[in-house]
């Protein structure tokens, strides 16, 4: 019988199986926290002109990559040993997909750190950093909420993240226009502005990955694939 301490993945006859699924969940959240910090620190390094921090972020990506492989292995072993079905199967499959998203987020953080170093070395007045900070905060909160939705199995929250993605895209478009204006004002800005543009692009991708994670959370909870479907469809699925 499920006791207070168990969660929805914790009441199998096999306690070992419970432990394995728990471990998978915990490790995934740990990796989520890791990449969240990576993105946060990369933005920090950029806007503070902190080359040392940027180096740390670049080095930190190795840990993220290792974590991806570890979690994939764990998931593979669960499939081999337990042949999970239904919600257990959905958890394992979703985790396999979502670690790929997290790993990509880690890569984006690394990319931002690389531009932070480049921009730091060029050492000119910051252009577009307000936008970087703004969009950065936005996608970080999306990523945070996506991981939260996973931990709580909260499909409503996941749905909110899916809707949020559109706003990030709009903000990205607006920031691009601002940077274009800078470039037109003075062609000497172009190289610099392009670097910032790449950073914004990376952040926008982080938002996309957060969105993918949210879609997987809905699949885990509701058993329906809401990828490549209009938000209205996803709304119906979550409302069920």
């Amino acid at each position, binding site marked *: 019988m499920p006791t*207070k301490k*168990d969660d929805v993945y914790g009441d199998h006859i096999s306690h070992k199986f419970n432990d394995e699924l728990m471990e998978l969940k915990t490790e995934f*959240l740990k990796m989520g926290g890791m990449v969240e910090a990576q993105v946060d620190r990369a933005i920090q390094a950029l806007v503070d002109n902190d080359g040392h921090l940027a180096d740390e972020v670049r080095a930190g990506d190795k840990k993220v990559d290792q974590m991806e492989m570890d979690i994939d292995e764990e998931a593979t072993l669960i499939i081999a040993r337990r042949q999970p*079905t*239904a919600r257990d199967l959905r958890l394992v499959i979703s985790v396999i997909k979502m670690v790929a998203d997290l790993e990509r987020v880690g890569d984006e953080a690394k990319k931002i750190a690389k531009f932070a170093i480049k921009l730091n070395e060029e050492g000119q007045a910051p252009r577009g950093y307000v936008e970087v900070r703004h969009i950065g905060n936005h996608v970080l909160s999306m990523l945070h909420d996506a991981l939260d939705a996973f*931990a709580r199995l909260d499909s409503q929250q996941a749905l909110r993240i899916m809707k949020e993605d559109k706003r990030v895209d709009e903000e990205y478009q607006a920031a691009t226009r601002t940077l274009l204006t800078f470039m037109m004002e003075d062609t000497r800005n172009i190289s610099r502005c392009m670097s910032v543009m790449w950073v914004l692009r990376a952040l926008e991708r982080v938002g996309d990955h957060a969105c993918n994670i949210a879609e997987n959370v809905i699949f885990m909870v509701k058993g329906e694939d809401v990828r490549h479907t209009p938000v209205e469809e996803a709304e119906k699925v979550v409302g069920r």
Partner: protein
Amino acid sequence: MNMNESISRAADNSDETVMSAQEPEAETRREDIKVEEGKTVGVPYADDPKFKLRNVEVFYGEDRAIKDISLDIARNEVISFIGPSGCGKSTFLRCLNRMNDSIDICRVKGQLMLDDEDIYHSKKDVVELRARVGMVFQKPNPFPKSIYDNVAYGPRIHGLANRKSDLDEIVENSLRKAGLWDEVKDRLDATATGMSGGQQQRLCIARAIAVSPEVILMDEPCSALDPIATAKVEELISEMSETYTIVIVTHSMQQAARVSHRTAYFHLGHLVEVNETTKVFTSPEHELTESYITGRFG
């Protein structure tokens, strides 16, 4: 935010949220999940079914083993019955060719139709019924006769072959369909009990096929077989589904997932859910089905 802080946040977060996520879960104890009698979720009905079963109840003396089950079994479909021990799946299966008749205290109520004929009609010829609805059991049970005679037995007593050459043909065809011909063609006179378990089971399938049945009932056909023999029988089931309607009771959920088109989940004499097999194993509709197939009880 530094990385370590962030990691511990994720971990804390998971702990705290796990608690909040399972609050409602802890309230619904499994014993409390009610099955509404006669109410099956999913898709229990089919167009133009082979079997049309309505409000079926089975009693062993006072004991009601099957509680108001309605189900259609489609033509040429493979449907598997799963559920914990004592859930009634075998009892229900055995109603389909009146194998329960031999149990004195067993009574069957409700409407059971095979192609619009009442299976339990008082004038129904049970021998003819069982020729149309063959059965394969858990333990291979070949007759202590030669391989040839095992397969030829049914056609002989049903008078399906007038000449030896006809009978030879039926035996060969049946053994071929059961995927056994190449292994035994040179020793048809050898005694069947000397074969391996997997071969014996396929021989029993050949024996069932020999009388040209329309339906084959299988009661845990692979539970006494090794993985390779199991794979062969499963392969056979897929091939046979082109010609026959197959109903299979199995304790191996993976087997149900592999071979059947639809899966029916039984629980304490109720038919809880019938759905496309793919749906049952990825996102079942009923909570009890989910609990059972994910190994939470059974």
